[in-house]
Each structure stands twice: as C-alpha cells, then as structure tokens.
C-alpha cells in the first residue's frame, strides 16, 4: 500500500502544479507563505536536478516584485511587508539561479541595512520592526548576510553569544534563552554557529548528539521533541544538525529512508508529514532534503548548514573573510 520506490517524476509534476493559477479560496489565503513556498518548491526541483522547470526571468522578476521599498527587505508576496523569513527565502532562490546581480546595488545595500538594523543589543534579531525575537531570525539574518557576503565581527560575535545562551539543560536549543528545546531551533542555532565559524564554542556536544539521535523513533521517523510523533520535516531539522556535527551515522539511515518514502503520495506526488496524510510542499522539500543528506535516490547533495545544494554553497565566500 505505502510506496517504497522513490517517485521523483511525480514530485516534479506535483511542484509544477503547485504554481499554477489558484482556484480555491485557500490558495489565495496562503499568500503570506508564497516566498517560502518558492524556496521549498524550487529547492526541491534543484535537488531532483530539474533546474529548468521554471524560467529564470519569471522567477527573478517575481522576487523583485516582492521587494519592499519601504524597508529594503523582501516580503512573502508582492505588496506584503518585508520579514527576515521571506528575505532569506528570496535570497536563497536568487542564489540558486545565480541571479543576485538582478538586485541593484542600491537595493542590495538597503537589504543589508534592513537585516543589520534588526539586530538587538543582546545579539538576537527581531523578524521585523515589531519585536518578535527567535533564533529562527538569527539564522535567517546570518545566512542572508552570508549569501550577500556581508558578515562582520560586529554582527557575528553578539549573534554567536546569543545563540550560546539558548542552549538548554538537555544540551539542545530553543527559540530564546529559557525556551524549550526543539529540533528546528537546534538547526537554526547550529547552522548559525557553523556559518559564523564558531562550532568550537559549542558545549556538551556528546549530550547534544545523544539528544539528536534519540529523536529517531521505532518506525524510523524523527520527532521534534521528546515524546512527540515523528514527522518527515524533522528528517531535515534533526539530520542537518547531525550532518553539521558530522554524526549522520548516529541514526538508522535505512529506516529513516523507509519512513520518508512511505510518506510519499503515489497518485499525485508530494510527501506528507507521515504515511496516509495530506502532502504539502514544505514536507516534500524537507523529505527530499533528508534523503539527499543520506545520499539516497541520486539527489543533488545538500549542504546541511545552508539548506542549498553543495554546488551552490561552495560559491559562497566563507566567514571569516580572507
């Protein structure tokens, strides 16, 4: 009943279909996620070596339409406000198409200002000017600046200190100091440390590695927190952390592969959170990203630090510069 073969062709069709003209009300109601969806969808296509399904010009001009002239960042859809989350997705997709040059020098410098301006004195970042603080935003800010090759010690050092303060009693990480550990936050924190060349500052690594590998449950899937159900997206959030720590072999790769493959939809393509559930592009991308980290299905190798193909991230200048 559940598929065990990789259904790549169906996934490609699934993602292409996703960007057709919206027909149902909820298509319109999901506009606040459009830029992220673009990253997940196009990221998935690139992992499957389908780099030319969309015209580069179309993608780039859509992203430029989402540039928010008031703030200098990118919004999730045209006319939506800029936010760090959508700004990183925009930059990631531009980077995938090697199209950062499409952003004028003037706009680009305003984007850098927008991001840097959101850093608070304690090193954290707010997602926009309304004050929400989260290690997700530290990561999105730091990776955005990394893609733009604009990291400086003034930005990096306090950011690293903030991240280290988010490590908990179980050695994993939460959204702010004192917040419960969650594997997606572990990714944003380890990813930030890795981009900032600061992994050597990480404490209690062995306990963290155990916490991460304990996320694998009996059916092979990974969960996000203790005593929670497994979910395909953690194939990325947990596995990327183990990848960053060079401990991918601390989980059972065959069982995890089985879990991801059985969450595919064998009729219309796509991957869901668990077998038998409805698919979405978010789980499709992170399922594929997990398979890529495991070296399965001839997928393009993905960089666990950036969530972009290795052949793309090798063109990013690494911090500290020179």
């Amino acid at each position, binding site marked *: 009943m559940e598929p065990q073969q990789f259904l790549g062709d169906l996934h490609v069709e699934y993602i292409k279909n996703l960007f057709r003209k919206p027909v149902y009300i909820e298509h*319109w109601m999901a506009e606040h996620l459009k830029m992220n969806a673009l990253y997940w969808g196009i990221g998935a296509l690139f992992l499957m070596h389908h780099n030319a399904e969309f015209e580069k010009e179309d993608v780039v001009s859509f992203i430029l339409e989402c540039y928010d002239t008031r703030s200098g960042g990118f919004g999730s859809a045209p*006319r939506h406000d800029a936010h760090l989350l959508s700004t990183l997705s925009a930059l990631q997709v531009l980077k995938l198409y090697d199209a950062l040059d499409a952003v004028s020098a003037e706009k680009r410098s305003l984007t850098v200002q927008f991001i840097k301006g959101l850093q608070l004195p304690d090193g954290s970042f707010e997602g926009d000017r*309304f004050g929400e603080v989260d290690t997700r935003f530290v990561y999105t800010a730091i990776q955005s600046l990394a893609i733009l090759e604009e990291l400086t010690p003034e930005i990096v050092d306090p950011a690293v200190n903030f991240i280290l303060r988010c490590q908990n009693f179980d050695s994993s990480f939460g959204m702010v100091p004192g917040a419960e550990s969650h594997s997606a936050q572990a990714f944003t924190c380890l990813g930030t440390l890795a981009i900032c060349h600061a992994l050597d500052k990480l404490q209690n690594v062995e306990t963290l590695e155990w916490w991460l590998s304990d996320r694998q449950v009996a059916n092979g899937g990974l969960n996000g927190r203790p005593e929670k159900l497994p979910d395909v997206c953690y194939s990325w959030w947990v596995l990327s952390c183990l990848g960053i720590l060079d401990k991918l072999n601390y989980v059972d790769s065959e069982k995890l592969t089985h879990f991801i493959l059985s969450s595919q939809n064998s009729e*219309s393509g796509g991957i869901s959170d668990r077998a038998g559930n*409805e698919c*979405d592009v978010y789980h499709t991308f992170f399922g594929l990203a997990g398979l890529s980290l495991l070296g399965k299905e001839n997928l393009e190798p993905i960089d666990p630090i950036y969530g972009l193909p290795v052949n793309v991230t090798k063109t990013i200048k690494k911090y500290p510069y020179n």
Partner: protein
Amino acid sequence: MPQSEPQRESGAFLDGYRTEAGILREHGTKKSKKLSKEAMMLRMKKDAANIRRYRKISDDVLTMKENNVYTENALKLTTQLLDWNPEFYSVWNYRRDILTNYMFVGLDVEKKHKLLVGELMFVLSKLKSFPKCYWIWNHRKWCLMNDERANWSAEMQLVAQFFEVDPRNFHVWQYRRFIVQCMKDGMVSEQGKDLLDFEEFAFTTKMINKDISNFSAWHNRSDLVVKLFANSPEASEEKEDSLRKYLEVFNRKSKKDFLELELNLFQNAIYTDPDDSSVWIYIRWLFGDYFLSDLSFKESVDIINRTYQVISELAQLEKEDNHGRDNQWCLKTQVYLLKQLYKVYKAEGTNDYPEDDARQFLEKRNRLIELDPMRARRYTDFSLTSK
C-alpha cells in the same frame, strides 16, 4: 475564474499559486479523498464568490496600508480580513500602525487600557482557533507591552486555560515565561522577583505530578533551578513543608541536598513510566557538571552510586516484567552515570575507579548496541574517555 483546466505554461506562478496539494498544512492532516472532476468544478464555482470577496478586501486593505490610511474604518477592515485569515502578517503589522498612529492618539492611560482590553479579546478569539500561530501570539505580546495597566494575573489565567487543552504547546509555555518576566520587570523588590521564580518552580512540580511525561515542565524546572540557586526568597515565608525544604536548599545553595530531594521526585517518575524519556533527560542533567562540580569527591561518588543502585533495581524489575528484555533508558542512564563517576575519579586525580564499574560500563554499553541497533554507532563512539 478559469472554466477549463488551467494553463501549464512555465512562470504561471506569477498569477498566484495553488495549494491543492498544499504549502504548509496543519501537521497530521489526514489525506482527503481525491475530488472528481465534477466535484472540483463545483467547488471552484462555490469558492469563486469567496475569492472575489477575499481579494477585494485584501486589495483594499493593502492599498490603504500603502497610503498610510489610519482610520477607524481601516481598523475595522483589518478585523474582517484577519477574521478570515489570521496568518496574514502584513495585516497585523498594519493594524499595529493604525493603533499606534491613530487609535492611541490623545488617549489617557485608562482609555488606552480599555481599548487594548478589547484588542486582547479579539486576539483571544483568534488564538482559540489557531493556538500555534506565531503572528497572533506576537500581537498579544505587543498589546501588553503597550498597555501600562496590563492585567498580568488575567494573562496567567488564560495560560492555565490553554494548558487544559494542550499542556505541551510551546507557544503557551513561552508566553507564560514572558508574562512572568513582565511581572518581574514591574516589581521593585528583588525578594518579590525571587518569590515569583519559586512560584513558577512550584508550578512545574504541580505539572509534573499531574503528568510525569510533560517534558515542557521538566525543562522549565531546570531553568528555574539555576535561577533559584543564584537568588531565592526566604524559606521562612513558605508554609508548605515540601516546598519549604526546597527553599531551604536554595537558600543554602546546596546542590547536594537538592539532588537528594530530586532523587525522591525522579524515583517516583521512573517507576510511574520507565519508558518515558522526559525524566531520564532530567536525570542526565542532574548528574552533569552543573551539579557535580559543586560536590566533594566523596559526595559525588556516594550519590552517583546510590542513584545507580536505584536504577539497577528498577532495571531488574523491568526485565522481569518484560520477559527478560532490558529497559533501554535504564541502561542508557547507567552507562552515563558510570562515565560521570569515572570523570569524578579523574578530577580527583586518582586511578581507583573500580574495575567492576569499568566492566559494567562495557557490558551495558554492548548490550545497548544489541538492543538499540538504530543508534549502534553512537554507542561504539561512547567510552569512559570520549569527549
């Protein structure tokens, strides 16, 4: 509205995109039956009017926002739109700008408070349907930060209501910590702040006793313990016996005595559900550097050995109950304790680490490799000396 199958030309996403197959669904959404072509057309027809309305109001709101229109009517329109789609973060942003630039203007503290109480009621109605939506929680915090008369105890009651529905919603836990911090920020007396931390600590005990597998509560406990060791309120203030014991320990800053008290708590928990990871993770922390570095060599050896003994007894019972199968969490904790014990000996500069413990360590670690092959590699990397 398209009457025929939509075109498939590349770049069509410029017109929007469809989530027939979903962008980001609520986790755990069951697969629905595939719609027949007729059913699809019917649904599209039915949705068409809604889409027209939704797009009209979205356009209107975004246009007003772009023109910096700050009026009561604009606020009403954002209410309508957010009622429809509370994830539309740009509209929450616009709403805050309307409040700041128009609604708040000329209001005294009391009138502003009244206005924000109404706003909080609107937010609550959204949170009830979307208890995991970051944008809504964020708006609630923003409201409170703008209200000099914010009613913190009402917010704590709200948290309690949300815990009734889901005691592990991390948004709610985070919100609770935020409220506590706001209460502390409003206090002059340091003693009052410390008392609040202790009340929160007592609350985690309550939550753990209700459900020992509430990991969120164990987490919060660990955070509060560190705070209370730094600063704690006077023990003499506390009437209840069991709580006063903790306070005395915090007052004396005695990590050893704290471990003794916790030994009772976790012993209870591991016997209640030996397969639940929450408490085992907590135990691991109790025997980490934060505590052991404050204990003398003798104290460390003594309490590690006693804890090891407690777990060994449970392991034996578990084995008998489960047809000879070992409980993995017992084993994992045993090897961890043996390793911590090794570190204690090392730090003391003695080579007297018992040979029997070294043998036990290897035996149990090898048993884990057999029992838990998914993680075999981490066990083979795990030795008394591994970092």
